[in-house]
């Protein structure tokens, strides 16, 4: 345990801080691309699909974490595949997988019978129960996400700006889109068991909305989204400890508040400009 000042003087708070900072930085990095692609609810949708994966694992006796990961990655890539083949718009493709995921999960848990209770522990983690092993997993994942985004943000931006032009230029549009979807799925599934699906899905979107209103370039949007994500985590953890609130939800509310504040400031600025 590190000798950190209050409120991070306890080990569970230090582990929550470590896992939270990693998730707070890397969820918005992946989320920036999803938001620009109008797939803001992808994180939430992956959580729904993972439910079917967990149930399948419990039913077959395989490790539910791995089955959830496989099903979620396939689901996220399926959403992209439908969209790329122009078989469905982004939001319709998401809906198809959301509802099939939930329904499939319900049917499979029904078949698994007495194992119902086990499903919940795989779907709803809490940031205050992070173990040292969990924190190490999250750290590994975070480093992987940051590295991928740092190396590939330009080609991913090309694809988001104009898929046809990127295809003409010879970029592997399908590969990059499916790769991004898979990265999102891995991030959500690995983190939701540890910090909860609400926290991970919300941190993929809300800090990005704030960053879009502050940043003056795409690169700055990436940096700001991570800064807002990490700040929301730290503030939320402190306030939750002081006031005795649910930490995951408090973090999400702070991320939402930053979005409202940035939008308000933006409105005032454009109002000012219109009058000036």
């Amino acid at each position, binding site marked *: 345990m590190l000798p950190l000042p209050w409120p991070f003087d306890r080990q569970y708070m230090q582990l929550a801080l470590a896992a939270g900072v990693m998730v707070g930085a890397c969820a918005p990095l992946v989320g920036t691309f999803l938001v*620009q692609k109008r797939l803001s609810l992808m994180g939430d949708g992956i959580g729904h699909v993972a439910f079917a994966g967990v149930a399948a694992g419990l039913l077959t006796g395989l490790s539910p974490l791995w089955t959830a990961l496989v099903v979620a990655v396939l689901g996220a890539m399926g959403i992209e595949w439908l969209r790329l083949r122009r078989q469905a718009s982004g939001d319709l493709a998401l809906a198809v997988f959301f509802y099939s995921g939930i329904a499939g999960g319900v049917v499979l848990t029904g078949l698994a019978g007495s194992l119902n209770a086990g499903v919940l522990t795989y779907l709803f983690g809490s940031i205050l129960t992070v173990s040292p092993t969990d924190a190490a997993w999250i750290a590994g994942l975070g480093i992987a996400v940051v590295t991928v985004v740092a*190396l*590939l943000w*330009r*080609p991913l*931006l*090309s694809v*988001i*700006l*104009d898929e*046809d*032009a*990127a*295809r*003409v*230029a*010879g*970029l*592997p549009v399908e590969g*990059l889109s499916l790769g991004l979807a898979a990265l999102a799925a891995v991030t959500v599934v690995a983190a939701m068991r540890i910090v909860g699906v609400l926290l991970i899905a919300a941190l993929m979107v809300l800090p990005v909305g704030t*960053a*879009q209103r502050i*940043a*003056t*370039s*795409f*690169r*700055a*949007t990436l940096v700001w989204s991570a800064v807002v994500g990490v700040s929301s985590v730290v503030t939320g953890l402190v306030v939750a400890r002081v006031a005795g609130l649910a930490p995951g939800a408090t973090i999400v509310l702070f991320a939402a508040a930053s979005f409202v504040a940035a939008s308000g400031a933006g409105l005032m600025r454009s109002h000012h400009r219109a009058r000036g």
Partner: protein
Amino acid sequence: MPDPLASPPDPVASPPALEVDRLSFSYGRNPVLDCVSLRVEAGEFVALAGPNGSGKSTLVRAVLGLTRPSAGDVRLFGEKVDGLTSRWRIGYVPQRPPLLEGVAVTVAEAVASGRVARRGWRRRLRAADHEEVDHALASVALSDLAGAKLAELSGGQQQRAFIARALVNRPDLLVLDEPVAGVDAGSQESFRASLVHMVRDHRTAVLLVSHELGAVADDLDRLLVLRRGRVVFDGPPAELTATGVNLGVHREDLPLWLEGIG
């Protein structure tokens, strides 16, 4: 590994930049393109005109390899479009700028996103690439707005940014799909100047699909007119203007002329 920035082969010995050979395409049972053949040589400035529904957009998509034709062949620089190795040699300016609302992307970032294709998507851009970005922005007179958000520019300025993105790899073939629709006169003039510069000074082949050819009518080497999926005219624009067709007010005039030639 070959240098991705190696010079293209000697233009004098090169095959045509674009060769379309008896291309046909149909949506279900509706024929859209019927045995279309055309060539654009290096350093040639060719426009493609025709009324709505004549198959222009489908032809452009097939030329770029975005749509697979029912029959026929598209070759770019002598290679089949599907197997083309140096795809960065094509510069493409799409018809409509994509949705940009809320996206904080600067003009320079958008242009640099085109450079990724030439450098190779797994590699980082270097100082030389950023110099090319600056050069492309200067060629469309957007240097002052390099750091501005793309979403906050006027329609004409956005279109110039997309032209800069197409020019940033110094392409050997430039394909522009209705690039000046709804663009102000000042932007049209700078657009014309940058195209003429590419054709005359860099021997770039240009295929310009447009309703409004007034701005470039005097610079064109050849005009192709497409009607109901067939090429009904292929020659210097002077041949067409001699018959009284005014390319500047194309929208009203050309369809009338087309009715006459059946």
